[in-house]
């Protein structure tokens, strides 16, 4: 862990205690996470595993979008079930598909949406929005339909919409999946360089290797937690290679 960020990291320590998540489906129950216990205060945490292994379910637990069927989850000392309101202010979530999280018609409106309900005046909100746009090379795009941005610009907007609310933990579920090599690198650089703690679910093993710690999920279970290089090796040799 990086000593300089010790405080903000401590602030968002993640702890799961015997967590099981089951989803009811037409065919019966699906176990998405099976008796997971873990504790981590890694500054950048990678989460890897096959499709359907439970990565997104894990990510969603962290800001209360899913609630554990059994067990408990706490983030920065807040229980994700009982303190969900406070939690949502502290945990920002970046989705794979920027179209799903850009909720307002235009770029500026979308950024402003994140600042609602914080007791800021319209003027203050506009100021903050303008500043963020300028920093990210989107100044000229303020009143453009957000859906007309390029893939990379959209994901950048989605992330800025999260950052503008100043969360102390960012959870990103495959944030670079739809991007080209250059945009993917930009987004990865941005996320890994943040002062905040960051959890990144990804199929991009190079990105995972750049984190401080990695989790490997398989079949709803946590298989390993540790140094990213070792975890990736185990993923490739034991799981991807499996027929």
């Amino acid at each position, binding site marked *: 862990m990086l000593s300089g960020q010790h405080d903000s990291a401590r602030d968002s320590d993640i702890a799961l205690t015997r967590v099981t998540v089951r989803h009811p489906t037409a065919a019966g129950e699906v176990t998405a996470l099976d008796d997971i216990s873990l504790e981590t205060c890694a500054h950048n945490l990678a989460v890897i595993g096959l499709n359907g292994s439970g990565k997104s379910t894990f990510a969603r637990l962290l800001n209360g979008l899913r609630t554990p069927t059994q067990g408990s989850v706490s983030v920065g000392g807040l229980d994700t079930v009982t303190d969900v309101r406070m939690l949502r202010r502290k945990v920002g979530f970046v989705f794979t598909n920027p179209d799903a999280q850009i909720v307002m018609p*235009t770029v500026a409106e979308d950024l402003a949406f994140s600042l609602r309900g914080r007791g800021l005046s319209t003027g203050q909100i506009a100021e903050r929005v303008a500043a963020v746009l300028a920093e990210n090379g989107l100044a000229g795009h303020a009143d453009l*339909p957000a*859906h007309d941005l390029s893939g990379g610009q959209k994901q950048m907007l989605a992330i800025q919409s999260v950052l503008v609310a100043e969360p102390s933990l960012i959870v990103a579920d495959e944030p670079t999946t739809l991007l080209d090599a250059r945009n993917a690198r930009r987004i990865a650089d941005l996320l890994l360089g943040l002062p905040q703690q960051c959890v990144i679910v990804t199929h991009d093993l190079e990105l995972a290797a750049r984190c401080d710690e990695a989790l490997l999920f398989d079949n709803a279970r946590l298989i390993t937690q540790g140094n990213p290089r070792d975890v990736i090796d185990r993923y490739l040799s034991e799981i991807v290679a499996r027929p």
Partner: protein
Amino acid sequence: MKTTLNDITRIATFAAIIAVLGIPGAVSPFGMAVPITLQTLGVMLAGAILGWWRGAASVLVLLVLTAAGLPLLSGGRGGIGVFFVPSSGYLIGWVLGAAVVGVIVHAGATRPVWWRVALGTVVGGMLAIYAVGIPVMAAMLGLSLGEATIANFAFVPGDAIKAALTVALTMAVWKAYPRAFVTPRQPRVEPTPVSVR
């Protein structure tokens, strides 16, 4: 009128949207035999965004699938039975309603204008639906038209809110995705003799 593939997929998509708007369920205030449902919002939006015939077609598609037994009405209801209850007239009214909204919003227009959407949702999304729904409800419950009209007032506040929402939503969709209001033309397909290797 030649249907393009875009017409077909948009009709199917709006039928699906109306169905999805039924998932939150419905409420029946003061023991009304006809529920208050968010699906009427979908009906208004279908007309306002797709125009009269695609809007009406998407409601028709929804009704046919419901009749075939799929649980697409609010609260997961479906089957032929839904066409023989006091609320059935309103269901038929949805088809007319979507068409009227579409005519008022789209006729001679290149883009949606808020007052047209407002007028369309009140005349089509409310009055036209009531015009079919009230007589059927009256007949089914053995009420007079006047009595059924009084009962119908239970829907007016909710429907007025949905109409206002439709105005805001339609204008916002125009801002966010202008392509919604013009169905793109398919590349033209020239008939050629078909012979497969």
